[in-house]
């Protein structure tokens, strides 16, 4: 279920209340943009996708089932739009590891920004189905159940996909010299 104030906001949005929509926008703009960026690895693309996501949300409130969680709905739209964007750009295939290499030696001390960049680069080397669960778990803070709800897959499947995704991500980071 949604939080009571969120339910009210959604009801107002369905009636076309722009102010209510802006409140939801303020609440979800950052996680939606962050998720899109992690999927696409490009700020401009992430901005475009974020814009598309919110337009779709605004135009499709009528089809939203209020008994479902709003964030599951908007995150699913975000991830689907990101994947659609990658398909349109012919960028669905993961990047090869050498493209993701940050050029750091294992001995090199990584500061926070470098580590963020390294993780992002490694993310881009794994398939989108695995990238998606990593983003939902580690960047959006979703539980197994919430990931399952958003992606419409069973919790058991979430666990196994997450397990594989982390292995792949870990391997990608290791191969680029980052432990």
């Amino acid at each position, binding site marked *: 279920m949604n939080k009571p104030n969120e339910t009210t906001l959604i009801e107002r949005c369905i009636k076309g209340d722009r102010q209510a929509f802006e409140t939801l926008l303020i609440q979800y703009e950052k996680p939606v943009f962050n998720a899109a960026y992690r999927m696409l690895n490009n700020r401009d693309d992430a901005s475009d996708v974020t814009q598309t996501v919110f337009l779709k949300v605004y135009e499709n409130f009528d089809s939203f089932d209020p008994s479902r969680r709003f964030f599951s709905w908007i995150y699913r739209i975000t991830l689907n739009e990101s994947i659609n964007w990658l398909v349109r750009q012919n960028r669905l295939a993961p990047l090869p590891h050498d493209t993701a290499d940050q050029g750091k030696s294992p001995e090199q001390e990584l500061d926070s920004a470098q580590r963020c960049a390294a993780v992002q680069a490694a993310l881009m080397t794994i398939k989108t189905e695995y990238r998606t669960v990593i983003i939902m*778990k580690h960047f959006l803070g979703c539980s197994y159940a919430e990931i399952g709800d958003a992606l419409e897959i069973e919790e058991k499947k979430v666990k196994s996909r997450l397990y594989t995704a982390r292995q792949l991500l*870990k391997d990608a980071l290791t191969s680029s010299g980052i432990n």
Partner: protein
Amino acid sequence: MAIDQKYTDLINADIDGEISDAEKATLSAFLAQSEEGRSVHSELTAFFGSLDTVDPELPPPHLRHVIMSSIRPVPEKPESPGYLQALFASSSLKFAATFAAGAVLALSVVDSNRISNSAFDDVARLVGTIADPVNGESRNSITVNKTEIAGKISLRQTGSMLILDFDLVAMDPIEIEAVYADRTIWFNGFASLQSSGTSISAESGRVTIGMEGKRRYAVFLHNEGDRRITVSLRFIVGGEVIHEASLDYDPAE
């Protein structure tokens, strides 16, 4: 020796905080007798922890305005009479009758199709193409002389229209926010001269412009009651305000 998949799953569930009491007891018993298990647990804890500390990528500051400008206003709630109707009804504003073809100031809302279309949708009372240069009376101006941006911003007035003229050069992308507290004054249009590549979004009491390079453009505000107004200007680069200024319009002066 490889760890049984069952325990690997439990280790993952434990680190994710999604483990039941019974599973936790099973895992604890396993870890107590498996050095390899403890090592994997420790390694994965560090790895997952490093993922969770990756800073979130923050959206550009203007994105919210762009999105709000992109959504269609509710049609049954007109906030004020259409500007064009008001304009044509006023004999003192005959010059406006030449709105239409043959632009001197080519109205453009650029940057992306979505932005331009949405801006039109949102600010339904755009001036549109202006046939004659609007020779408003100069009321105020400021100069900006910063490393990031330099040039002049002037405020002119003609009838109920206030015109902010921007003649600026910015080395890098910059966002300019023009904020006016009086909500009876509304954004009435945007015209760009000799340049493109400027983006604009508008909401009640605020116009946000994105630009880079040398740009000349004008922002039109409708001031029906000829009210006193202060337009606060904020110049933002990379989310940081690098300069602030204001332009006053006082009808008594």
